């Protein structure tokens, strides 16, 4: 089985990092993993996205094709990638920023106010981790929340205390798991 994730938003929202933490967690679980980015030259603003594929078998193409989970951190990201989401797949919409939530047929849509949840956890800059937690809950296979918690601590090892980051990750997870 392989699972495809597309993290998309604007530069500075941490979509590449969120994808990297997922990929890091997958590699640590001995999964076959690919992470491939696409972004402009801007550090802030512009568009940014990455595709992460995880497999307990060999991952073929690393490029976006039919994501099982789309994490749309803003409206342009949603409009760009919504048409290719796999039937039966999921979309995590950052409803703190995206105000119009669509209802595409055959796809589960989760509105997760990622910026607000991050702010509630007193960790305003970690909306990306909230969305990552939500994506884990929506994907439901290959990686558990605990795997990604460990991956987050490993990837962000230079941060001695990741408790507030983990709190946001878990809050994002709950936003999807408790809505089901």
């Amino acid at each position, binding site marked *: 089985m392989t699972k495809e994730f597309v993290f998309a938003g604007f530069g500075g929202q941490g979509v590449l990092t969120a994808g990297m933490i997922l*990929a890091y967690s997958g*590699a640590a679980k001995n999964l076959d993993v690919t992470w491939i980015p696409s972004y402009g030259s801007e550090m802030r603003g512009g568009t940014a996205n990455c595709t992460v594929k995880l497999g307990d078998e060999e991952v073929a193409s690393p*490029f976006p094709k039919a994501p099982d989970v789309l994490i749309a951190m803003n409206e342009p990201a949603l409009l760009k990638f919504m048409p290719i989401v796999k039937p039966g797949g999921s979309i995590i919409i950052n409803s703190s920023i995206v105000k119009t939530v669509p209802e595409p047929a055959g796809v589960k849509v989760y509105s997760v106010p990622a910026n607000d949840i991050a702010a509630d956890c007193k960790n305003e800059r970690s909306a990306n981790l909230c969305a990552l937690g939500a994506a884990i809950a929506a994907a439901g296979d290959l990686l558990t929340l605990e795997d990604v918690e460990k991956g987050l601590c490993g990837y962000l090892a230079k941060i001695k205390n990741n408790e507030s980051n983990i709190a946001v990750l878990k809050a994002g997870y709950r936003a999807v798991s408790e809505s089901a």
Partner: protein
Amino acid sequence: MKQLMKGNNALAEAAVRAGCRLFAGYPITPQSEILEYLSWRLPQAGGEFVQTESELAGINMIIGGAAAGQRVMTSSSGPGFSLKQEGISYLASIELPAVIVDVARFGIGLGDVTVGQGDYFQTTKGGGHGGYFIPVYAPSSIQENADFVVKAFETAEKYRTPVIVLSDASIGQMCGSVELPEQQYPKRDRFDWALGADGDRPPMGRKMTDRMYTDFAYEEYVPHICSRYNEMKENEQLWEEVQAEDAEVLLVSYGISSRICKEAVKIGRSLGLKLGLIRPMTVWPFPVKAFRKYNGKVKGYLAVEMIPIPQMIEDVYLAAHGAAPVYAMPTGREIASSEDIIENVKAILNGTKEVY
């Protein structure tokens, strides 16, 4: 245990673990991470890292290091790789083991820093002068970026030949899971041909020169060259087959394009198409042995390469040996798409695609 690494970094780390003692090269996108990584990692492991003033200096320093019997490497891309060709010809002539990495980018001349597969002829047909051939490994994953560097050092020493690792901008720039190889500690004095020696043994009675003038009588030169390259051709072909056994159409593709082909095989099979893949892991020697199994059985080979004007297809054509039609699918500066591949396969099967 697997870990997440960028392709270029995995390649560089694997070189260190293979016991590389000297890297000399010059930065150019999309291979600069190899230098960046080795600039701190190689000295840490007791090796020498030199950022040379040019690619020419890089390849020529490699000749010196190789002559001393050490594992040595250089890397480049695009126009920088072109600058190394004279040195590669000299390595082939002096018969010295060395690893040269080409992280291929797109286009002619300066081209572009994005991915491309336009260096096939340059790497497999002798980019430099004089008619040499050297083994060329074509990784398609982060894991193979690491594994093939180790393999390249081994093959280089087995035949005393330069070896190329033909990576590409996608494989170099993406991240993936990799299980890194064990650290090796090759002994410096393990060769009887190398210049210099450890300990008391003086470096006497050895010379390193263009063999043509000195070591061989003229009439021995040609048979020597022929047996050398024929042996590599016979023994070093590597390839992967994906659902090839019962395939009606076999895709042929290497590097990043082959990964899309694997996706296409999966999708094609789910649609009931008998589709398979031959993926050359060495592009020289080209894996003709794989084709011998399927010539006369398949309805066609479809060569998928990321280039405007196809190159690898000429080797496919030779390998098909007139026993199966060969079709081209050059994808220009776009990475192949599974849909396009499947459309091409359908066209082959219904007879509407033109033979190359």
